[in-house]
């Protein structure tokens, strides 16, 4: 096949000196640099490029850009990526593309058999059948048949995705003539401007048209303009950058497909723009007639793009079919390209605007195309005189169609701007804007270049609040015909033709389908969409949706505005998920927090866990081949019998100070703090206003109205929020200041009977005697040479010293402790053994006993609830609740009858172990090292009154009996921790 058959010898924006070899459906082809896959295939005479979604009809290329409804390919190899409109793929060396959803090839597709049963499978047929024996019987094969491309199983092949934030005075979406001139105007004023366009280069429709601007070829004007924009540092010009979402507060999202930065594969921008100009142009819509999907039927504007921009000849004998005037520019360019233009079918009856220079073409006025002939390629068309009904057949292999122009209002509509129907233009146009944005150019339904540019300049001045006197001078332009159109929503169905008129080419939805839906009562446009799936494909109905609306209007005998549109939603075109998350993946996917001895912990074999508030902390420190339980037992025993050290640094810590600090603390906690002495601390329970426990911790008094509060690790931020909220919104007159000091202080908690000896060995100027430094006291002094705040609190029930030092000292302190502690056999312990020890003591743990449903009374913590305070947060709710329902699930201890069987935490307790509603559940169950048996804690209905009763824990396969005890198994009087 000689090349020139399909490629013009000169012109176009391709580089004939750079030949590129690529593969399509396992065949090798050549094209030129600058070609899209579509244009390159066309230049090779390939017209059959796809099979349709449902009926597997042969399909070709229909559009030239993001509107393409027909030919989708998947890229294979490194570039693996599915469902790419063939028109949006640039050819490059090594490109390997394959048609989707056909097997073995578009030319011979086995599923094409669906065409023959098409009568049986109209829109929504699946709701009426496949019920017997059941849907599962059919589902797998239906699923295999659906779905277009296969899912990618490789990720990007080079670099990484990036997301970033940007701010600007003006974001211009679209760099056609409107966007470019607007950018030029805006740039002059010094405003921060971003100009983004989806295309490979700026220029928009100018790249596809033969126009003169300022006496030059349009492309030269474009390139001069972009060069001067690029020279200004207040302008950011992006190409291959789709603006795909317009969200609240003028936030727009852009994704750049090939940013210039090395290593950045794709980049998304979240742009907060003070003003937005939507210069997205217009999209040509399809025409609906019998077999309008045959390969060889194309959008007229696409033809224009192929002949002008890519210098290809999309066919040999062309016919154009339109209901509007834009077809004549296409006719002119076609003729110039050397393609034979056989005729123009102009459905309009009332206007005659055939340009002077085209008087020689054959125009069938007031005609429509009734149907296409040929199967795998268009071979002829039948046209029909709309007045007389007489028909004529015309042989051709290319049919360009134009159903009129729809302003690309997608983003405008996403911005919540309403669109309104314009009967003269037979389309929906932007109405009043709601956010700070305006449509310019063809997006605002202006279709001549002169007016486009004038409009753009004027609205730019408005947007930037500039005086009209600042308007830049427009380049002189050639005169253009006014746009005129007469709506043609579809050619009347001719039932005898036994053919299909496609209204959504991608989803294989026909005009009959729309009519069927309406006949069955689905006559709202949203019902039609969902019943037929029209507009729900990858192209989101860019070329077809308006015809659906028109068809409904025709049938209902109303205007399209009464039908309305479906909702325009982001994304404007499909966007790779990877481009949305940028570098937020892998290790940084979620934040993580380290204490200053994290490395030490890891080096000493700690198994690191996710704990609250994104801290990573040691769960346990297994020794060589120890089993989990062995380690936990060893660590627990160490605390009970000897000495261990625990990294308690993540605990939330706050300094609270001010004349009203005590008032605040008394409001936050259920118990009284007013009699607390300086240097002493008190355990407190924090409730939410509903009376549910949400945190606990110890608060020390540093001085009058000056406190040091600790909170649970996981809740530090929530407690901070809770305090600031109460202070700032409910008691703004209280004078209290809170400083977060969680990481100012690190800590090493010595616990075990030998803790005091160890403190001594470390060397300290603090008097360690129980009298001078009692339980719940805090003392400041030097420990092991480090300035420290030492607290005597205990979560394990053993004698403990919490040594808090400045974080910078923590590793040194820790190493000192390990060194000095050698004679005591000191060893670090993790949160697992802490869990065992606190269960032995019956101390509550957030997430276990306090699971977001429990009140202090439920946990037997009545002692921690002040009887004298008139108010604290949550007090009132608890009183109301308790008065209404005294018998709640309450904390108890459990001794399973079989002392060796660990029971799952979370297992329910049911009456008699029967399979019925539960009366409680096991909140924690551990192997107790002091009792050498299993012990558990549970919440049990009315449990505080059921001591010694046998209850039944229902595991899935058997029932475990257990005796109810008090929820403390060790040192009930608490002598050890006070020792």
């Amino acid at each position, binding site marked *: 096949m000689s090349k020139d058959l399909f490629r013009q010898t000169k012109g176009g924006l391709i580089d004939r000196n750079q030949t590129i070899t690529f593969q399509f459906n396992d065949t090798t082809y050549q094209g030129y640099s600058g070609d899209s896959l579509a244009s390159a295939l066309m230049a090779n005479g390939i017209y059959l490029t796809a099979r349709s979604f449902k009926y597997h009809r042969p399909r070709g290329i229909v559009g030239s850009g993001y509107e393409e409804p027909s030919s989708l390919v998947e890229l294979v190899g490194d570039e693996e990526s599915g469902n790419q409109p063939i028109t949006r793929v640039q050819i490059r060396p090594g490109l390997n593309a394959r048609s989707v959803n056909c097997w073995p090839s578009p030319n011979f597709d086995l599923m094409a058999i669906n065409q023959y049963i098409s009568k*049986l499978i109209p829109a929504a*047929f*699946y*709701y*009426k*059948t*496949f019920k017997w024996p059941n*849907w599962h019987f059919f589902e*797998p094969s239906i*699923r295999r048949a*659906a*779905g277009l491309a296969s*899912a*990618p*199983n*490789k*990720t*990007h092949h080079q670099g990484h*995705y990036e997301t970033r934030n940007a701010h600007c005075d003006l974001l211009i979406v679209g760099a056609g003539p409107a966007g470019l001139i607007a950018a030029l105007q805006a740039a002059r004023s010094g405003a921060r401007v971003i100009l983004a366009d989806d295309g490979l280069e700026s220029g928009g429709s100018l790249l596809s048209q033969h126009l003169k601007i300022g006496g030059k070829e349009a492309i030269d004007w474009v390139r001069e303009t972009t060069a001067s924009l690029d020279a200004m540092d207040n302008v950011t010009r992006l190409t291959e950058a789709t603006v795909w979402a317009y*969200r609240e507060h003028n*936030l727009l999202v852009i994704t750049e497909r090939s940013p210039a930065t090395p290593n950045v594969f794709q980049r998304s921008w*979240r742009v907060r723009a003070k003003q937005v100009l939507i210069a997205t142009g217009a999209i040509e819509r399809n025409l609906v007639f019998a077999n309008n999907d045959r390969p060889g039927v194309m959008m007229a504007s696409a033809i224009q793009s192929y002949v002008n921009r890519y210098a290809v000849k999309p066919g040999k004998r062309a016919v154009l079919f339109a209901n509007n005037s834009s077809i004549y520019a296409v006719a002119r360019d076609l003729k110039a390209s050397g393609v034979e233009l056989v005729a123009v079918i102009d459905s309009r009856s009332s206007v005659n605007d055939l340009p002077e220079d085209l008087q020689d073409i054959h125009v069938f006025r007031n005609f429509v195309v009734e149907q296409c002939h040929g199967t795998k390629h268009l071979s002829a068309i039948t046209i029909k005189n709309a007045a007389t009904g007489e028909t004529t057949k015309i042989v051709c292999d290319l049919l360009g169609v134009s159903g009129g122009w729809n302003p690309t209002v997608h983003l405008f509509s996403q911005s919540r701007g309403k669109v309104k129907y314009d009967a003269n233009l037979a389309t929906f146009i932007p109405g009043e804007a709601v956010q700070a944005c305006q449509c310019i150019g063809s997006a605002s339904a202006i279709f001549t270049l002169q007016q486009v540019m004038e409009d753009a300049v004027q609205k730019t001045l408005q947007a930037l609040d500039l005086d009209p006197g600042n308007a830049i001078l427009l380049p002189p332009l050639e005169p253009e015909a006014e746009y005129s159109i007469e709506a043609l929503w579809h050619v009347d169905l001719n039932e005898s033709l036994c053919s299909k008129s496609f209204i959504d080419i991608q989803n294989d939805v026909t005009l*009959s389908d729309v009519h*069927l839906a309406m*006949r*069955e*009562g689905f006559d709202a446009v*949203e019902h039609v969409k*969902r*019943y037929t*799936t029209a507009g729900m494909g990858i192209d989101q109905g860019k070329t077809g949706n308006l015809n659906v609306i028109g068809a409904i209007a025709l049938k209902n005998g109303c205007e399209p505005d009464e039908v309305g549109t479906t*909702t325009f*939603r*982001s*994304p404007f075109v*499909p966007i*790779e*998920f*990877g481009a*949305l998350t940028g570098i937020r*993946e*892998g290790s940084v*996917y979620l934040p993580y927090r380290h204490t200053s001895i994290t490395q030490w912990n890891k080096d000493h074999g700690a198994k690191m*866990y*996710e704990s609250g508030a994104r801290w990573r902390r040691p769960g346990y420190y297994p020794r060589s081949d120890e089993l989990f339980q062995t380690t936990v037992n060893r660590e627990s025993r160490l605390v009970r019998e000897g000495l261990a050290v625990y990294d308690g640094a993540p605990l939330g810590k706050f300094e609270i100070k001010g004349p009203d600090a005590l008032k605040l603390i008394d409001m936050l906690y259920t118990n009284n703090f007013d009699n607390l002495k300086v240097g002493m601390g008190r355990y407190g329970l924090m409730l939410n206003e*509903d009376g*549910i426990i949400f945190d606990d911790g110890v608060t020390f008094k540093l001085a009058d109205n000056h406190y040091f509060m600790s909170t649970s690790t996981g809740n530090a931020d929530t407690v901070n929020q809770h305090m600031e909220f109460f202070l700032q919104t409910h008691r703004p007159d209280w004078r209290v200041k809170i400083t977060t000091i969680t990481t100012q202080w690190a800590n090493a908690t010595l616990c075990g009977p030998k803790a005091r000896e160890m403190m001594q060995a470390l060397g300290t100027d603090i008097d360690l005697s129980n009298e001078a430094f009692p339980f719940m006291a805090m003392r400041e002094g030097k420990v092991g040479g480090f300035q420290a705040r030492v607290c005597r609190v205990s979560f394990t029930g053993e004698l403990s010293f919490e040594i808090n030092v400045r974080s910078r000292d923590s590793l040194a302190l820790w190493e000192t402790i390990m060194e000095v502690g050698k004679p005591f056999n000191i060893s670090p312990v993790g949160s697992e053994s802490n869990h065992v020890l606190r269960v032995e003591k019956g101390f509550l743990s957030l997430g*276990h006993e306090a*699971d*977001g*449903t429990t009140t202090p009374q439920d946990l037997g913590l009545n002692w921690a609830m002040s009887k004298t305070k008139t108010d604290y947060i949550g007090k009132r709710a608890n009183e109301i609740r308790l008065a*209404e*329902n005294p018998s709640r699930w309450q904390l108890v201890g459990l001794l399973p009858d079989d002392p060796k069987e660990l029971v*799952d*935490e979370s*297992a*329910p307790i049911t009456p008699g172990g029967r399979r*019925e*509603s*539960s009366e409680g559940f096991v909140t924690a169950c551990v192997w107790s090292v002091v009792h050498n048996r299993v012990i558990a804690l549970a919440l049990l209905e009315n449990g505080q009154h059921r001591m010694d009763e046998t209850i039944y824990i229902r595991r899935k396969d058997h029932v475990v009996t257990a005796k109810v005890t008090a929820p403390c198994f060790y040192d009930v009087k608490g002598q050890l921790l006070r020792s």
Partner: protein
Amino acid sequence: MQSYSIFSLARNALSGHQNWSKAWRSPPLKKRYDVIIIGAGGHGLATAYYLAKNHGITNVAVLEKGWLGGGNIARNTVTIRSNYMRDESIPFYVKSVKLYEGLTKELNYNLMYSKRSMIDVVQTYPKLREIKRRMFNGDLHGSAYERIEVDELRRRIPPLTGGGPESRLPILAGMVHPSAAVCRHDAVAWSYARAADDRGVEIHQNTEVLQLLRDSTDGSINGVETNRGTVYADKVAVVVSGHTTSITDTIGLKLPLKSFNLSAFVSEPVKPIIDVIVNCPDIGVYLNQSDKGELVIGGAPDAGQSFRRDIKQQVFEDAVCSMLELFPSFKRLKLMRQWGGTLDIAHDATPIVSQTDVQGLYVSAGWWGGFKAVPAGGYTLAHLIAKNEQHELTAPFSLNRFKRLDFILEAGTTTAT
């Protein structure tokens, strides 16, 4: 009701599908009905159907401000399951799943009900504990839930290649809920509408309720004011998911509800890759693949009350991030469309099916995960309306619980915001 089957399809094919009858009528709006149901979503339509079918009450109007089935039933991620945590909730959802399983036959409409199981990908110990609680409690009420190990999890979900031992949140285990299913959401609304209509219920689209009307003497409900005039009834049910307070506010009735936006998105359609519902509770994303091939993905709700059916960028990005951590090969998969829905949530996050302080006024609300609940929600609300007493399955969902501050805290966390 016209029968739907392969035979009726074949028969109609011969006549060019010209003879299909309307799925529902558009009768004139009467002045009075026995019962008015506000909202032709899943719950409203199911309620109407069961009123007619189970209780013989057919003088019923369903009033819908837009097009029927255009609310949340058109926008949810179609997950049906019964793995709840509380004894008060589980039996209700078990019943709903049972009803769903028979619905295609009962309504003579292929709902494409696909029982394909849900698998939770568990990544933290606290979550594992919570889910185990659901597992044990489910077992008490006939809702199955089984633990599987990581290898098996990966075998069942081939593209799940993230979450390895070195990753930020390694996968600990999987939990399989075999009776979970997906089905065609729109078809649920359409099939209930068709069947209710067939039994005499009237569905009035484009009929917006603007105001509730009360009897001036005893304060009981009288009817409603709509954009098409006044319509009277002694019993009115507010079943408008997300918009409940907009209606009850018109008579000053106070309800513990907040409206918010939840959003979802779909990828481009691709060939089958996942045949179960995947739920990742630790990182807040869940997904399934529709029969048409697109991945249907949901994430967390927006912060703040909202009636905007749109997605917020950061919420969306969070969901995508989470998905890609576990499914890295989806990086090159493409987003095709995203949208949102307006839901309401009660103070304790558990739904409300209840009489109100206003005689004759019923509400069914707080359905922020209520697609799965459509059949049982309708079934029990119809019972309540017909008999004026709570069905035992929804007895715990009555408004009375708030008067005692005795919440059903399903989420296992403090009250939802």
